[in-house]
Each structure stands twice: as C-alpha cells, then as structure tokens.
C-alpha cells in the first residue's frame, strides 16, 4: 500500500465478524451506509473473520436469511469506495484477491494505525 494514499475520512467502520453467524456484520454495514447517505466520507476495514464478508459465492441461509453479500453491492452506490482488508486475515483462510467479490486494498502493518488515526470516528463491529 503506497504511503501516499490518503487515509482520512469521517467514519471508519471496522468489520471483524463473518457473515451469517451473527448480526454484527450487517449492523456495521448498515451504519456505514447510513453515514454515507448523510454525506460523510466512510471507509471500511475488513479484519479478522470479517474478511469473509468479501468471499465470493455467498448465499442465503437455510431459513432464507439474506446474509450481507447483497449489501456489499450497495457500497458503490453510496460512494463507499475506500475498502481495506487485513492481508494476514485473508491468508489465514487461504483466500486470495481472486476469491473476493470486491477489490479491497491490503493494508500493511504500518498503515493500519494511520488509517485509524485518519478518521474522526471509528466504530467496530
């Protein structure tokens, strides 16, 4: 990740939970979408099990639970284009860029604290 990238914004939402197992991911994405709709500049960081939110091929749950993959499609519509991920987490699951629904920038160790410092508000989910 180039050190010239601008890591600043109004809100950083950190997504640490996998889809389907809990509502954390959906509730975090909802907060991001609402902030964007309110005109804030929003960044997303997919960290830990949260990187699985980006995995291709997600479907509905057995009771018809929607999951969050369809919500990801809405990010661009809301002008949320600063997407970051923890490359170690991705590797932990044996996933590569080609397995992802959306491109997200891999953050190196030095950039993560800068990303957090650069946003006025940081919410973790």
């Amino acid at each position, binding site marked *: 990740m180039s050190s010239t990238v601008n890591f600043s914004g109004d809100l950083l939402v950190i997504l640490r939970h996998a889809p389907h197992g809990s*509502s954390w991911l959906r509730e975090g994405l909802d907060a991001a979408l609402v902030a964007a709709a309110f005109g804030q500049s929003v960044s997303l960081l997919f960290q830990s099990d949260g990187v699985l939110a980006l995995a291709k091929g997600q479907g509905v749950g*057995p*009771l018809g639970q929607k999951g969050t993959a369809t919500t990801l499609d809405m990010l661009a519509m809301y002008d949320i284009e600063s997407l970051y991920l923890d490359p170690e987490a991705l590797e932990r699951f044996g996933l590569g860029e080609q397995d992802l629904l959306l491109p997200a920038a891999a953050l190196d160790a030095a950039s993560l604290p800068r990303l957090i410092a650069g946003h006025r508000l940081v919410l973790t989910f």
Partner: protein
Amino acid sequence: MRYGLLVKGAPYSSQASHSALRFAAALVARGHRLKCVFFYHDGVYNAARLAAPPQDEPHLYDAWRSLHDEHGTQLQVCIAAALRRALLDSREAERHGKSGHSVEPPFELTGLGQLIDLGREVDRLVTFAP
C-alpha cells in the same frame, strides 16, 4: 427418539435460533419427536411477542409458534432469565405491577427445574448457543 433443544442465543443477533429451528424441522421430518424447546440466557428473547422483523427476513417468533402448533412442541422460557430481560406474561406483569405483557402462549414461563426434567425425559438434549 425424543429430543429437547436448549436455545441460549437472542434471535437475529446470533445464528443460534436459526440453527435450532432448522435442526428442529429436520428431526421431526425424520420422525423424531421434539418434546420441548427450552429458552435460557439471551435465548429467552425469542419469546418476545412484539417482534416485527423486516419482511425479507425469517420471522423467528412465528416459526417457533408453528413448531408448537404443528408438532406439539412445548416452548418453555426460564422465568428467572426472562424477568430481568423484561419478558413477562400477564400473570407476572400483574405480580410485578406492570401494565401490559411481553410473553404469551404458546410460550410459557417456567422454572429451571423444567430444563432438568427435560434432560431426564428426552433421549437427546441439543444446545444452540450464541
């Protein structure tokens, strides 16, 4: 076989309720009897009668009721866990001087002793936790 389920996760917040309902459907389809679902810890929130989930999501409260209606499964809620979480049936509401109630049949507030009895009466007790 006779089964019992113990559900400890709040609806929607964790997958526990979804998993339990799914497992319940599969076991009755295979001819087993699901005697009772016991709700404990945050699982008691499954009994909240006013749930109004979005129409494109599973309606867990209604799904529990269907389980009761179609298969006679008892829906028992730990009363101690329920009271502090604002889940009161009419009787408890009156006893605590509250107007209105949040739990109604087929959900029943019962003591933990019912869980212990359930463990004795069924062949398998399977827990779904958050």
